[in-house]
């Protein structure tokens, strides 16, 4: 549809068009809300649970293991799975405190923007074949730009809190996340170069095809590891994947890059003045974004929902393409890869000390950006060869 068509054909039928748009929005909104309720919140809560449980294991303590279910005769501790829910309920009941002297409106909407940003990432996350909200032709571009939305929210939170620690935290966030967008974007370009498309589904299907490494055709199904982008332009894309992962950690403010909120220096950074569910939204958003970016990483470099489990479902159990077996196999495939990356994030956090801001910046501009550039050039050469 170009401009002329819009002006000559669609404009005269505008009322219908508007009502159509409204209907489409409403129709889209309900499933979107359902998706939020069904996917994002459990992912966030499970993420919190996993973090606490794993950190407990790492630190030789139990972690949450009591809050379970108790309905009539059904009593079970459920390994503490209810802890996140209980905490969420507790947060809901807390006072929603707005610091006096702060920018009230900005303060109130900042967590919504952060949460909304990580929510929007789920729209393009390909959980499995046909199991995706949207598959725009600018998929990666969408991910990178929506991911940057969080910075605005955090800056708003830091500024509106009327607290010097919050402000310093927000400034750190802008400096850090803004910088790490660069190597992250360059790293994300490598799969794009291999595929020739920004569309996530095409990037996935390219990884399922028979692998070509440096122009050498390897006659095995690509789903069995070798087709994955992480092995493309071997070994450069392994480095690219590591760079991408480090950038994910930095963008998510995960330790060792948790400078914007680092507890021992800035009290709680931009979160200092937040309480109750608004604070909880930041956290839910963080864990949802962790899951989403892990999923994007798995999609870009580890074949997304294609891989050995999916291969087994299709070729071993003879699931029809697009059928239920195909979808379930793909979803399992996607989940294990994403969970692996997710757990790695937790593991890193509880092992390493925090970096300093100048070190974080040096790592970005002196090491990650040049390394990503080299990898991109090598990937381009490999793409030319094959």
């Amino acid at each position, binding site marked *: 549809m170009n401009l002329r068509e819009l002006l000559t054909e669609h404009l005269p039928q505008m009322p219908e068009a508007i009502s159509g748009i409204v209907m489409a929005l409403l129709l889209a909104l309900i499933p979107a809300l359902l998706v939020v309720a069904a996917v994002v919140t459990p992912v966030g809560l499970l993420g919190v649970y996993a973090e606490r449980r794993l950190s407990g294991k*790492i*630190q030789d303590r139990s972690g949450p293991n009591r809050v379970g279910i108790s309905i009539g005769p059904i009593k079970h501790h459920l390994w503490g799975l209810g802890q996140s829910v209980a905490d969420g309920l507790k947060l809901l009941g807390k006072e929603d405190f707005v610091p006096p002297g702060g920018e009230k409106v900005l303060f109130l909407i900042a967590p919504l923007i952060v949460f909304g940003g990580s929510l929007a990432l789920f729209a393009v996350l390909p959980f499995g074949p046909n199991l995706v909200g949207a598959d725009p032709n600018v998929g990666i571009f969408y991910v990178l730009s929506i991911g940057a939305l969080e910075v605005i929210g955090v800056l708003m939170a830091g500024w509106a809190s009327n607290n*010097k620690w919050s402000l310093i935290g927000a400034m750190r966030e802008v400096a850090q996340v803004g910088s790490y967008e660069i190597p992250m974007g360059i790293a994300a370009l490598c799969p794009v170069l291999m595929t020739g498309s920004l569309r996530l589904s095409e990037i996935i299907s390219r990884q399922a095809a028979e692998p070509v490494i440096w122009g050498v055709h390897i006659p095995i199904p690509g789903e069995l590891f070798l087709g994955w982008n992480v092995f493309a332009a071997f070994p450069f894309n392994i480095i690219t994947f590591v760079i991408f992962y480090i950038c994910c950690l930095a963008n998510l403010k995960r330790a060792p890059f948790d400078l914007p909120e*680092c507890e021992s220096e800035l009290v709680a950074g931009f979160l200092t003045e937040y309480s109750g569910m608004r604070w909880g939204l930041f956290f839910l958003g963080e864990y949802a974004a962790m899951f989403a970016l892990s999923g994007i990483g798995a999609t870009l470099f580890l074949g997304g929902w294609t891989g050995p489990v999916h291969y087994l479902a299709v070729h071993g159990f003879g699931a029809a393409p697009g059928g239920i077996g195909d979808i379930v196999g793909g979803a399992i495939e996607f989940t294990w890869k994403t969970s692996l990356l997710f757990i790695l994030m937790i593991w890193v956090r509880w*092992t*390493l000390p*925090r970096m300093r801001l100048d070190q974080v910046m040096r790592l970005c501009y002196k090491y990650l950006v040049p390394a990503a550039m080299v990898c991109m050039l090598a990937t381009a050469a490999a793409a030319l060869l094959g």
Partner: protein
Amino acid sequence: MVPERDVQSEELVVNMGPQHPATHGVLRVTCKTDGEVILDCEPMVGNLHRCKEKIAENVQYWQFMPYTDRLDYLASMNNEECYARAAEKLLGIKLPERMEYIRLIMTEAGRLSSHLMSVGTYGLDVGAITPFLYCFREREEANHLFEKISGGRMLYHFMRIGGCARDLDDAWIQRLLEFLDRVESKMDEYNTLLTWNKMFQERTMHVGVLTREAALAHGVTGPALRASGVDWDVRRDDPYGIYHKFKWSVPVADGKYGTVGDCWNRHWMRALEMKESISLVRQAIDKMPKAGPDDFQPVESPHKPYLAKGVPRTMRAPKGAEVYVRSENPRGELGFYLVSDGGTSPYRCKIRAPAFCNIAVLPHITRGYLISDLVAIIGSIDIVLGEVDR
């Protein structure tokens, strides 16, 4: 064309504390910063002032003992030992040899426990949470041990003037030895996790350098002084108790890693001192003599303390007598200056708190560093506010 304009910038005054997770209590540091760079900072102490010296003038000598627990509440044994020794010197009480051994064992175990805490919380200060919990796991065992012998987990009131609360029994000593073995076996693990961690080193090496001259001029003592390359340990160079009977090495920073006097070296001195304390306790347990027949007063009931013979019930020092006694505490040299006017309570009791002197040097070593470094520097100086503010 856009006209050029000066960007307005101004210095930011940030109040760190007294309610801040990294100031180890109620220290308040006002920092003048330019962005994140610290131009100047001033520690404001006194939030935990509890008039200890005034209290000492109003209670009897023996009654002041529990108050000394609350000075450096992470190493209460060491405070008690120092005060007990000061009072004994003032009152002219001689200790049996076994009691000296008991004191050495308890103070060195206290030092170990205190350093476990310091090393762990230093990890926490620079963002490594897991080593902190590991150290706390071990410290918990130390707390259990002290609780078993004294009844208190942190504030023991174990030492008495002329003795201590209880004799050490064999079962307890056995448990102490097991604890030492466990800590020693874990030490390398903690060092791998924290001390030799590249990121930790990046954060702490060459940061907050306290030169040898500045350390001496400002009266810095303890591990911080030795990290600045001064080979000085009161236990060895001005020995008290029975330290002269033992062989151990005093760790001193030699510039092999990092800069002499930086945060990492202060941390490293503590990690090394833990090993020396373990060795000292083991030696003392090996050599500890049995109590002689005339050494101690008979203990009539389990509630009565274990005192040397000849400790008077009413303690009175001669008029005008004064003593200054110091000991090597985990945080530096603790000193007690007691003056008597012939009464049953001190006429003047001055507590020379190591952390008070050490934290005074903070403004001189933080200028030009970042806020993150300030946290690392405060953590490496290792203060306890109970002692700073008294």
